[in-house]
């Protein structure tokens, strides 16, 4: 079943065309890798899926679970089950990580008509995941991402994803800025969340991440559209031959 369907999507940022007729389908339970050179539109795709406001959609549509999401506010998309793990998570001074997680989870549950999670249930959900990700109590008490290292910020993104349990997780260059140990912790965290009910879109520039999060399919993005799709071996081919072969032909 097609879970996410991006149809002939055209997107501009400040009058500059970034996505140029992008078409992409992600099946339920599928892990799809999106690879491509810098400037190919990978992060734009991630932000458009999450609903950032300075991206102007000039054509096409995005269907999630058969429903167009383009008119939905970011919080509404989140409540429908879309989650973006940011490439550069922002610092939120003054808001403790624990408060942030609880506010977000309860807001989503409320939007879906579910009751708030009880405190013990909530604490258990956070603690179990946090310890797997090497996130201690001290970090949970601190303001969101404030004073966190690059690796800590990325782990915090995965923690949020684990607590919110989205149906579609978009991981935007989750590997950037991580050393090999941090990468392994983050990838393990993502792999624990793989499920037949959850789809993932893993955006990366390098094949390295895909050694740890093995995708079901790989799509290559160049100049704002998908130029090639294949199995996980496509990532290895790209690693060996580079992106130059696609940069010319999409022009």
């Amino acid at each position, binding site marked *: 079943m097609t879970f996410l369907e991006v149809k002939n999507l055209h997107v501009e940022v400040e009058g500059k065309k970034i996505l140029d007729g992008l078409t992409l389908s992600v099946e339920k339970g599928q892990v799809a890798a999106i690879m491509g050179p810098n400037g190919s539109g990978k992060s734009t795709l991630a932000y458009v899926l*999450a609903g950032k406001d300075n991206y102007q959609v000039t054509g096409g549509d995005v269907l999630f679970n058969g429903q167009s999401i383009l008119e939905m506010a970011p919080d509404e998309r989140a409540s429908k089950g879309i989650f973006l793990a940011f490439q550069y998570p922002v610092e939120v001074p*003054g*808001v403790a990580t624990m408060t942030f997680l609880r506010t977000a989870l309860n807001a989503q549950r409320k939007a879906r008509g579910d009751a708030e999670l009880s405190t013990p249930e909530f604490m258990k959900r956070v603690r179990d995941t946090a310890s797997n990700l090497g996130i201690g109590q001290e970090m949970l008490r601190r303001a969101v991402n404030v004073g966190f290292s690059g690796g800590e910020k990325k782990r915090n993104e995965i923690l949020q994803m684990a607590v919110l349990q989205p149906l579609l997780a978009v991981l935007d260059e989750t590997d950037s800025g991580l050393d090999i140990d941090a990468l392994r912790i983050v990838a393990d965290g993502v792999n624990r969340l793989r499920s037949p009910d959850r789809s993932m879109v893993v955006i990366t520039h390098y094949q390295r991440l895909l050694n740890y999060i093995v995708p079901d399919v790989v799509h290559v993005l160049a100049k704002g559209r998908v130029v090639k799709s294949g199995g996980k071996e496509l990532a290895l081919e790209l690693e060996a031959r580079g992106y130059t072969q696609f940069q010319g032909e999409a022009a």
Partner: protein
Amino acid sequence: MNVGVRAVKTPAEQALGAAFAAARAKLPGKGSVAALRESAFRRFDTQGLPHRRVEEWKYTDLRALMREAFPLAAPPNPATKAHAKDAGEIFAGIAARRLVFASGAFVPELSDLTPEPGLFVNSLADALAKGDTLVANIGKTFETDDTAVALNTALMCDGATIRVAAGTALKRPLHLVFAGGNEPTAAFVRSLVVIEKDARATLLESHDSGSAQVNAALELVVGDDARVDYVRTTQAQGLHIFSLMAAIGARAVFNGFSFNADAQLVRNQMFVRFAGEGSKGGIRGVSLLKGKEHVDTTLLIDHAKGHCESREQFKSVIDDEGHAVFQGKIVVQPHAQKTDAKMMTRALLLSDEAEADNKPELEIFADDVICGHGATASAPDKALKFYLMSRGIPEAEAEALLIQAFIGEVVEEISNDGIREALMFAALKWLGARG
């Protein structure tokens, strides 16, 4: 410049003059106190109400803003006292010793006067009438020729006089509760608090002014090696002027915090002198403004002695057509070497019509000091808001959380858990009312 008595007086200035003429014989205190009143009144009479060409009052033109001067409040009636009984509810959760003032007059039957060793409490009216030795300190803590202070000195009716004896650590916070009624009256209150050497005290001061015009002042003496934590809150429908005059001794710790919410027209001025070496001071505050509210915070920090550290941090959240003013001046005197002073003010603008004026100033006459200041005014951060919304938090809630965080950064500096929670609770209530 205006020299001598001004020929043309505004109606408010005339009314204040008439009020003083009528009250001078009845106001508490004879001899030196009466002379102090007379000279203070002459200063007011010469200068008139401060206006925009007086640099310190540039953004709060009292001559234009104070259309009329309300008559001095009569002694509180039963209704006013009943209202005062529940005033200062912002600190209701704190087990403090309440000293209650209704329409500017001390109400002993609503106050907690149970004895505590080392604590001496009296009303200013009584202290002035009896010529208490503490009264000799009035006007000496931080001498200033500010007109609002002069008016206060001329017309002060009552207030608290408190002495905490050397070495005493008060068991409970003191809470000065000031409550105004809904009548158009004026109250001039002056309090004098002396915390002696090596003593410790937490002082809370809440003003629920109602629709009264209030001119309140506090002189605070922090002795050598003493520690004082001081938090003042203001809620007012009319004009509210507050002046803090503080002198901090050597090796002392002073933390002051101002909180203004639902305050129509406020001038909050603080004169703080580091009068001994090796002290630490934090002077902070949060103002929440909506509608056409105007809150002016004006600081004068005088580093008169060296080796002191001061931190000044003020934040305002401004909605609708609110107008927040921050003027902060740090003076480092010629011999105050090794002074470490940092001042920061930030304004969060929630609407296109919101206005913030920030004016930080440094005057440094010593050469071996660390001093700095910064000021910002901006709308809520879009990237932060998107991050919160992308996690499912609706826009209004995301904005509230960011405002809470903005305020929280300053409130966090208060060491007492109960007081911190009380202020955050009041801030959340303000946010909730915003809808």
